C-alpha cells in the first residue's frame, strides 16, 4: 500500500482568528455532515420521529435500525444487560420490514441531516432488494450490516468472499454511497475491509459489537435469551481504535469509527486513528445532549490546538 499518512496538513499552533471559526463539517463519500457525530445503528432508530429528534439534538447524521425485507420481532427478553464497562445486547435485529420502514424514512428526513439506512439480509438478493427500496425512499446512504455478532447475517462479515459478494451486488444496483459495517470478531479485519473496498464500498464503518456473554451466578443461567450478544460501550473503545487504525493503513475510502464513544476526547482519538466521522450508540444512555456536548468539546479542542478544520486531525496518529 502506497498510502500517505496524514493527508491533511498538520497545522499546530496556527492562529484561528478572534472568533475561533472552526469547521466541523465532514464529507463521507459525498454525504455531507455538519459535524462528525452520527447516531449508531440499533439505537433508537426504529421510528422516523425518534431519528428526527436525534437529528434535532445535534447529530451530524442518523443511522436507522438494520432493516430487513420482512418484519423481524427480534429475540425474547432479556435482550440487553449492563456489565462493568458497557452493555451486552442481543436484540435480534428487530425492525418492521422495509416496506413499512420506507414511511418512517420520510419522517426521519425532516431532521434535515443525512439519513443512512442500515441494511441486513439473509441472502445477497435480500440485501439488494432492501437497499433498492431504501434508496427509493430517499435515504442518503446505505450501511450494510454484515457484522451483527448474534444474527446469522453476521457470518458474512467474517468471510472476505461473502463480504465481497454482498457489497458488489448492492453496489451494482444502487447509486447512493454504500458503507460497510465490519465486525471485530475476525482474525484480520483489514482482510475484510479490503474485500469490501475492492467490491466498491464507499466507506467502512468499524466496529460492530464484540461477541460476548454474561451468566447470572445466582441462577447459573446465561442472562440474554439468545445466550450470546455483542459488547458495546467503553470496554470496546481500544479495540475499535485499533481496528480503525489498521483499516486506515489499507483502504483509501473514509472510515466511520464506532465503539464506546462517550465524550469528545474519544472522538478525537478515533479521528486521529483515521476515522473521518464517528457513530455513538451506547453513549446515548447519557441522553441526547451527548451530541451537542461532543460537538462543543471538539470545537474547543480544535481552537486550543489551532486547527481550522476537523479534517486536519484525521489520521494524525499515522504521520511519519
Amino acid at each position, binding site marked *: 500500500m502506497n498510502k500517505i499518512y496524514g493527508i491533511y496538513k498538520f497545522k499546530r499552533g496556527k492562529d484561528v482568528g478572534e472568533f475561533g471559526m472552526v469547521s466541523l463539517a465532514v464529507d463521507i463519500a459525498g454525504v455531507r455532515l455538519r459535524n462528525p457525530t452520527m447516531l449508531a445503528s*440499533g*439505537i*433508537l*432508530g*426504529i*421510528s422516523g*420521529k*425518534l431519528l*428526527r*429528534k436525534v437529528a434535532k439534538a445535534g447529530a451530524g447524521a442518523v443511522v436507522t*435500525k438494520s432493516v430487513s425485507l420482512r*418484519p*423481524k*420481532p*427480534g429475540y*425474547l*427478553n*432479556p*435482550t*440487553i*444487560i*449492563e*456489565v*462493568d464497562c458497557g*452493555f451486552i*445486547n442481543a*436484540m435480534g435485529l*428487530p*425492525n*418492521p*420490514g422495509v416496506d*413499512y*420502514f420506507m414511511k418512517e424514512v420520510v419522517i426521519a428526513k425532516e431532521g434535515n441531516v443525512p439519513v443512512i439506512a442500515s441494511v441486513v439480509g439473509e441472502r445477497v438478493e435480500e440485501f439488494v432488494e432492501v437497499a433498492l427500496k431504501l434508496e427509493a425512499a430517499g435515504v442518503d446512504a446505505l450501511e450494510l450490516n454484515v457484522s451483527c455478532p448474534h444474527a446469522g447475517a453476521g457470518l458474512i462479515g467474517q468471510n472476505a468472499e461473502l463480504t465481497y459478494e454482498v457489497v458488489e451486488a448492492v453496489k451494482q444496483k444502487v447509486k447512493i454511497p454504500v458503507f460497510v459495517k465490519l465486525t471485530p470478531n475476525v482474525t484480520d479485519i483489514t482482510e475484510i475491509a479490503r474485500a469490501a473496498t475492492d467490491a466498491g464500498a464507499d466507506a467502512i464503518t468499524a466496529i460492530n459489537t464484540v461477541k460476548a456473554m454474561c451468566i*447470572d451466578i*445466582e*441462577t447459573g*443461567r446465561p*442472562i440474554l*435469551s439468545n445466550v450470546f450478544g455483542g459488547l458495546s460501550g467503553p470496554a470496546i473503545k481500544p479495540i475499535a481504535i485499533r481496528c480503525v487504525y489498521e483499516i486506515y493503513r489499507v483502504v483509501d475510502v473514509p472510515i466511520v469509527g464506532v465503539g464506546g464513544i462517550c465524550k469528545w476526547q474519544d472522538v478525537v482519538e478515533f479521528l486521529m486513528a483515521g476515522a473521518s466521522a464517528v457513530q455513538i*450508540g*451506547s453513549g*446515548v*444512555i447519557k441522553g441526547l445532549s451527548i451530541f451537542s456536548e461532543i460537538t462543543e468539546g471538539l470545537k474547543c479542542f480544535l481552537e486550543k490546538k489551532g486547527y481550522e478544520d476537523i479534517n486536519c486531525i484525521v489520521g494524525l496518529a499515522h504521520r511519519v
Partner: protein
Amino acid sequence: MVTSMNYPRIVEVKEIVEEAYDVKSIFFSQRGLKKPKAGQFFMIWIPGIDEVPMSVSFIGENELGITVKKVGEATAALHSLSVGDKIGVRGPFGNGFTLSDGDVLIVGGGIGIAPLYPLIMDLLNTTDSITVVLAAKNNKMLIFLDKISNILRRECDSLVVVTDDGSAGLRGLASDIAAKLIEEKSYDHIYMCGPEIMMRKIFDKAEEKGVEVQACLERYMKCGIGLCGSCCIGEYLVCKDGPVFNSEILRKLKDEFGVFKRDSSGLPIEFSS
C-alpha cells in the same frame, strides 16, 4: 460485581396473593433495590422464559409487590411461581407519578389500578379529596376493591365501582362515568391507567374542561433504559420519558395516544375498542 440497576438482582418470592382468577400479586424483598416511586416499573426476569416490564403495585417498608394479569407466556410463568422461587428484578425505571394537591380523580381500568394503588397511598397525604373510579369488565375481573376501600378512610374520599355488564357497582364504561364526573365536579388533577382508548377519551374530556391529567402508558419494551427505541410513542420513550405522561406531552401525542402501539418489530397496531 455489577451494582448497576441495569443488571437483574435475583430475589426470592416471599408471598403470592390471588387478586382475581387471572390476576396475582407477587411480593419480594426490596433489599438491594432502590426504593421505587408510584408509577415506576421493574423489568422482571423469569430465567429461561422472558423479561417483562411490571409496574410496582405495592411499596412497603422492606417489601415490594407487582400485580400480574395472565395474558401470555411470560405472565403465565409468573403465575406459576411459588413462594421461594427466584426471579430477576431490574430497575426501578421510568419517571413515576408527580403528586398533586386539591381534589383529584383517579381512574383505574382493569389491571390499570395496579400502579395507581401506591399512588393513592401517597396522595392521601397531599390532597383534599380523592375520588377513585375502579372499573372492570365484570365483577370477577374487579381487583383491589377491598384494598382501596380500606385506604380511602377520609370523609372527603369516595369510591365509584363500574363494570361493563353491571355485575358490580354502576353499569357502563369507565370513560363515560369518568367523563360525567369531570363534567359535574371540578377536579384539580386526574390520574389514570388502563386501556388506552379509555384514557384517551378521559383525556379529551379533561382537555375540554381544562383539567390536567397524568396517564400511565404501556408499550412493547425491550431494553427498558432508553437505548433501543422499541417503546416509542411519538418522539418519546415510555421506558425513560414515561411511563407517566402529563397533559402537556399527551397533547403532542394525539396521533398515537389511544390510536396505535407497536409490536416487537416496530409495526404499528391500532387499538380496537
